[in-house]
């Protein structure tokens, strides 16, 4: 499984060009918002999972069906 880059570096437009601030700051804010959303989703998932992952996995045993 490849790990895909998700978090983007923080910080503003430091290339010194004379471009208006809004665009990069806007894009950056959006990226931060995305990271924040993902973080809160992963926190929520963490909060609902049984805390002992290994026990949960090992405890899940079925007999054959079909």
């Amino acid at each position: 499984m490849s790990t895909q880059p998700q978090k983007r570096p923080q910080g503003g437009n430091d290339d010194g060009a004379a471009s208006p601030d809004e665009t990069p700051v806007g894009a950056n804010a959006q990226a931060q918002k995305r990271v924040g959303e993902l973080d809160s989703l992963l926190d929520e998932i963490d909060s609902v999972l049984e805390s002992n992952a290994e026990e949960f996995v090992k405890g899940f045993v079925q007999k054959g069906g079909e």
Partner: protein
Amino acid sequence: MDRRVIGVETEFGITHHGGEHRGLPPDEVARYLFRPVLKWGRSSNVFIPNASRLYLDVGSHPEYATAECDDLLDLIASDRAGELIMHDLAERAEAAMAQDGFDGSVYLLKNNVDSQGNSYGSHENYLIPRTTHFRRLSTILLPFLVTRQILVGAGRMVPATDEAAAHYAFSQRADHMWEGISSATTRSRPIINTRDEPHSDAAVHRRLHVIVGDSNMSETTSLLRYGATDLVLRMVESGVPVGDFELENPIGAIRHISHDMTGTATVKIRHGGEQTAVDIQARLLDRARRFVRENGAHHGRVEQIFELWERTLQAVSSGDHEPIERDIDWAIKKRLLADVADRGGLEQGHPKLAQLDMAYHDVHPRRGVFNLLASHGRVTTQLDADRIQQAIVEPPKTTRAALRGRFLSTARALGAEHTVDWVHHKLVDRPLDALMLKDPLSAEDPRVDGLLGKLGDHADRLREQTLEERKRQQLPLALSERYKLTGPHEFAEPPLI
């Protein structure tokens, strides 16, 4: 066949976690789970008012078989309704267990593998004409099904073995298939099962029973799964040339493909050469598009299915899965596992990733990880919540399911002992009048009205209850009574059983 009956049977995994204590074993949890069902129908194998079948299978698997559907969205709605029905039963089981002093949480998992490698299925049934040439069917359909996992697999975190490190694979079921075609299910799992119970006129139809599929959580993935399979069957039935992809070793191929997320694994074609799953699927897609150009689309979702089919193949062959990670189960799950692994610095074999793989399939609306992704708007859907809830109580309107639903709900409202199965409809006191409804595509039949008429004139005494009224009944919603008897009737009110 312009209209085809399709049904899906889903076996759910069941587990109980007792918090501080050891959880109850699955067979005991299943008994609690089916307590309301047993009380309602005096059996743990019943047809319910939405005309689907709810039962406890071998090995204490709760199982739900959708009613006959001739519309893909009806089918997906009925299948999704099955998840909510199981959840409703799980909540009641939890409460009953707590009363008996067993605290903890009941988990119903719509997946296909447990921690010890036991597997259980998601079986698809497609009604096909009896005249379909079976050899042609199998030479086209087997390679399609062997490679279909790259489109609609549910994804699996495969634990480490002596031979391989822990890794992610396309399919839950691929490693559990032992044969291409046979009549067995538990002894030896074939991709296509030849058990031919058409539940209809066997001179006209046969049932194609496909047991290779993974249980899907995503409605979009489900649409592609049933939609593409139906299109391939249409080509088989029409007799058009579809190409020669017959595999030298279908079982070797299905495993080989599942474990290669790069999509570059090749498989041997019997009549020479090697191809990747993407090659085979791309050619089938191309043929299907040509077929639809020449014969027209037989339903309104065909173009959407083609678009998904193509986009998924492109994602696999390019290695960039981002374009499908809101639509296709294996890609949605893979992305989530990557995000969690990244954040926590977890290795591939970490128990938390294995747990997430299972929790993705938890049917609980607020705890199941797929459902959490959906509530955060991170996956695509095809149905609104109302339609799914409707499917919990209402049979599909355009197939025999409508008749079965009406028959059993009317008989219940009038307090008449009755039995139904896919074909048979019987009032216990009138065994000679038993009806066989052999046309699964027919939603109307005067014989049903005739048989129900023997219970007296009830036309103006039965009122169909609203969804709100049904929710207020003390029963699980799926078992709620559809009709209310509003006036005097020669039969007593149904006994509360």
